[in-house]
C-alpha cells in the first residue's frame, strides 16, 4: 500500500516537470504605427522589433498592404511611402530582431491625415478606419503555412514649420523671467549711466 502511494506521488510530481507543449509564433513590440507626424519632403523613422517564441526557426518577410474600400480618396493608400529594412528575416526562439520602418512623405503631400480615415484608427474597435498596413509573416522554414500580424500605419502631415517656432516657444515658456531680466538690465543700465554722468561732472 505504501509502495503504491509512493509511486502515485512520484508520478504526480513528475507531471509537474513535463514541459507544456505551447506552440508560439512571433511577437512584435508595436501593434500600430498610427498618427506619425512629419513635414512634406521629410522621412519619419520608427523602430519595430520581432521576438521569436517558436521552438523552431521561422523564416519570413515584411510587406505593405492597402485595404481598399469603395469611396476612398488618394490619402488612404500610402504604401508607396513606406519601406522596411531589412525586409526578409529568419528568427529563432528568444531571438530579438530590430527593423526600421521609414515613411518618406512626398514633398507635395497636403496637410492632414494619411493612411487612415481617423486618428482613432489605432484603438481597439476602430479597424474599419484603417487602410494602410505593414505586415510581417513567417513560417517554419520550408513550410507553406504562414502566420503574421497586420500593423496599421497612418501619418499626420504637418504644415511646413515656422523657423522662429523654437524661439517663440522659449519666450512663451519663460515670459516672466525674461520680463524681469529686461527690467533688471534697464535699471542697471540706468544706474550705470547715472554713475558715468556723476563721474563726468566730478
Amino acid at each position, binding site marked *: 500500500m505504501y509502495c503504491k502511494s509512493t509511486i502515485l506521488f512520484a508520478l504526480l510530481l513528475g507531471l509537474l516537470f513535463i514541459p507544456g507543449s505551447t506552440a508560439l509564433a512571433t511577437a512584435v513590440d508595436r501593434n500600430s504605427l498610427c498618427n506619425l507626424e512629419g513635414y512634406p519632403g521629410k522621412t519619419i523613422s520608427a523602430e519595430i522589433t520581432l521576438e521569436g517564441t517558436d521552438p523552431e526557426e521561422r523564416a519570413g518577410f515584411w510587406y505593405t498592404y492597402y485595404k481598399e474600400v469603395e469611396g476612398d480618396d488618394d490619402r488612404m493608400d500610402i504604401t508607396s511611402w513606406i519601406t522596411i529594412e531589412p525586409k526578409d528575416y529568419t528568427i529563432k526562439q528568444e531571438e530579438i530582431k530590430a527593423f526600421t520602418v521609414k515613411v518618406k512623405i512626398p514633398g507635395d503631400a497636403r496637410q492632414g491625415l494619411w493612411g487612415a480615415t481617423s486618428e482613432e484608427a489605432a484603438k481597439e474597435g476602430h479597424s474599419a478606419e484603417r487602410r494602410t498596413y505593414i505586415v510581417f509573416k513567417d513560417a517554419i522554414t520550408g513550410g507553406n503555412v504562414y502566420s503574421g500580424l497586420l500593423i496599421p500605419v497612418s501619418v499626420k502631415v504637418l504644415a511646413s514649420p515656422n523657423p522662429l517656432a523654437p524661439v517663440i516657444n522659449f519666450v512663451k515658456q519663460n515670459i516672466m*523671467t525674461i520680463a524681469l531680466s529686461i527690467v533688471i538690465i534697464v535699471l542697471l543700465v540706468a544706474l550705470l549711466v547715472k554713475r558715468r554722468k556723476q563721474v563726468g561732472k566730478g
Partner: protein
Amino acid sequence: MEKKILFLVGVLVLAATLIVSVTVLASNEATQSASSAKATTVTVVGKVADTAIATITFPEGAPSATVSVPYNDVDTSSDPQSLDTTASEPVVRLKNTSAGTLKVWLEITTWANGVAASEDYELVVTTDTTVAVVDNVLSSNGNAASVDTTVQIPTTEYRALYLELVLSSLAGKTGTSTLTVLGETP
C-alpha cells in the same frame, strides 16, 4: 536714489530666482510605471496538440474534383480533415497566444500550374463539430486572395479551420500555394 535702484534690482533678482526655482520644481515629475504585453501572431497548430504545423497538403484528386480531406504535417495523412454533421474535424486549429483579441484574415498565394479552380474555408469554434459544408470563399479562381473573415479569437482561445479545394480541369498537374493566417487588433 542709487540705493533705491540697487534695492529694486535686488528684489527683482530675488523674484527671478524664485520664479526659476518654481519652474524647476514644477518640472519635477512623479514616476509612473506600466507595461504592455507584446502582440503575438495567431499560431496554426495541430488538431489536438499545440504543435505548430508547417504544411497543409491536399491529396490527389480527379480533375475538377472537390478535395475536402486535407491534412497537416503534425497529424499526418492518417488523420485528415473530416466533414460531418455530427463529428467534423478541422484541418488545423488557430490559437491566439496574443494578450488581446485578434481578428483573423486569411491569405493565399496563387496556386502554381493552375491546379486549383477555387478554394473555400470555414472558421468556427472548436466545439462546433457540425461542419459538413465548406463554402466561404477564400479564392474564387485559384489566384492570390486576401479575406477578412471578421472572426475574432479572444486571447488564449482556439478556432477550427476547415479548407476545401476545387481542382481545375487540368490533369496530371501538381501545384503549391501558401496559406497565411494574419491577426489584426479588432
